Every structure is written in structure tokens, then in C-alpha cells.
């Protein structure tokens, strides 16, 4: 499976010159916890709600600071056509929960470990349905032939 096919949610972007306050407002209005910081469509970094907590609130940084002063950069990113196994490897290696997905350097979306876990759980549940049905409804088995 390609990484781009695992993107579940549309991405929201902000410019590097925008303020932290503006970015927080975008997060609040759109209900997302991570924003792509883009120059045009080129990914410059990722700003997460955790960045706002650790690098703004905890340090007393002004909400008028620029986004590119507090964002995570360079963002851990993956090519859109890369196999999803590579995404899992990056999550593991970098200890992040979100990856920027890019094509030719242009941001196309964000894939999150949460979304992948939901997909993984679904993939595990579907094949197991016949087995659980068999266990739960064993009486449906046909009777053994009488010798």
C-alpha cells in the first residue's frame, strides 16, 4: 500500500511568517492538532499542538512569534508513493506520530500513526470475523453423519 493511500484527513497549512496565535486559531477552528508549515506548497516544517505547549506556553514565548520560530523543522517526511512499511519505519526511528507526505518536495498531506493503527485494527478484525462467528455460533455446524 502506498503512503498517500493511507492519508485519511485533509491537511491544513499555514505560512512560516504567520504568528503562533494565528496558527493556534487555525487549529481550533479546523479541529486539527498539526499544521503543515508551507512556503507555497513546499513543506518547511510541522507545527503541532505539542509544539505550542512546549515551545510557546512553557517558555513564555509571545503568541506574536512567527510560526517558523517554534515549528518542528525539518519535518520528518515521506514520499507519497513510498510503501507504507517505510512510514512505519520512520515512525519507529524518529519517535513521531505524524509524517508529512510529499511529492517532488510539495506537501500533499499528513499521515498519522493514529490513522494507521485504526486501519491496522480493521485489517485484523475483518479476517477474524469467520473465526469469531464459528466460536460464537458453533451450534450452526452440521451434525456429524451417523455411522
Amino acid at each position, binding site marked *: 500500500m502506498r503512503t498517500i493511500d493511507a492519508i485519511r484527513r485533509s491537511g491544513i497549512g499555514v505560512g512560516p511568517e504567520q504568528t503562533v496565535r494565528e496558527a493556534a486559531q487555525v487549529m481550533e*477552528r*479546523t479541529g486539527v492538532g498539526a499544521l503543515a508549515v508551507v512556503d507555497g506548497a513546499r513543506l518547511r516544517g510541522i507545527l503541532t499542538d505539542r509544539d505550542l505547549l512546549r515551545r510557546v506556553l512553557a517558555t513564555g514565548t509571545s503568541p506574536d512569534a512567527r510560526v517558523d520560530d517554534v515549528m518542528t523543522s525539518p519535518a520528518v517526511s515521506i514520499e507519497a508513493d513510498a510503501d507504507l512499511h517505510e512510514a512505519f519505519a520512520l515512525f519507529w526511528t524518529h519517535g513521531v506520530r505524524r509524517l508529512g507526505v510529499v511529492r517532488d518536495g510539495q506537501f500533499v*498531506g499528513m499521515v498519522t500513526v493514529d490513522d494507521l493503527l485504526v486501519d491496522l485494527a480493521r485489517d485484523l478484525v475483518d479476517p477474524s470475523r469467520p473465526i469469531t462467528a464459528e466460536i460464537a455460533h458453533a451450534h450452526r455446524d452440521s451434525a456429524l453423519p451417523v455411522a
Partner: protein
Amino acid sequence: MHAHIGDRIVINGHRVDEPVRDCEVIEVHGPDGGPPYLVRWSDSGHETLFFPGSDAAIEHLEHLEHTRA
């Protein structure tokens, strides 16, 4: 995905209680109608830079006008 100014983008909710949201494309920043798009949300009137994913569907302006007619 390709859009034009005036098209409507509908974003499906990800949870049972999450409402469907929609926005209007007011600027197309990618080549040949591609993303990103500057959009205006219908529920708040705010504008954001939007990269559509699999949860988003575009309703083209001509289709909308045809539906209204």
C-alpha cells in the same frame, strides 16, 4: 484533484458525532487546478490553506449552478 474558484469542497466527518463541513475555494495555488487551495469555511467564514485528502469531495461550480436551477 482539481478545483476552480467557486467550487465547494465537502469534508466528511471522521466520527459518528462529527459534522460534515464544507468550504468554498477562493484561490487555487497549485498548477492546473491542483492543491493547495485557499478556502473559506461556510460555518465560520474563516480562510485556511487546504490540502484535500480522501475525506474531501469537490462539487464543481457548474454542477452546483445546475442543481440550483
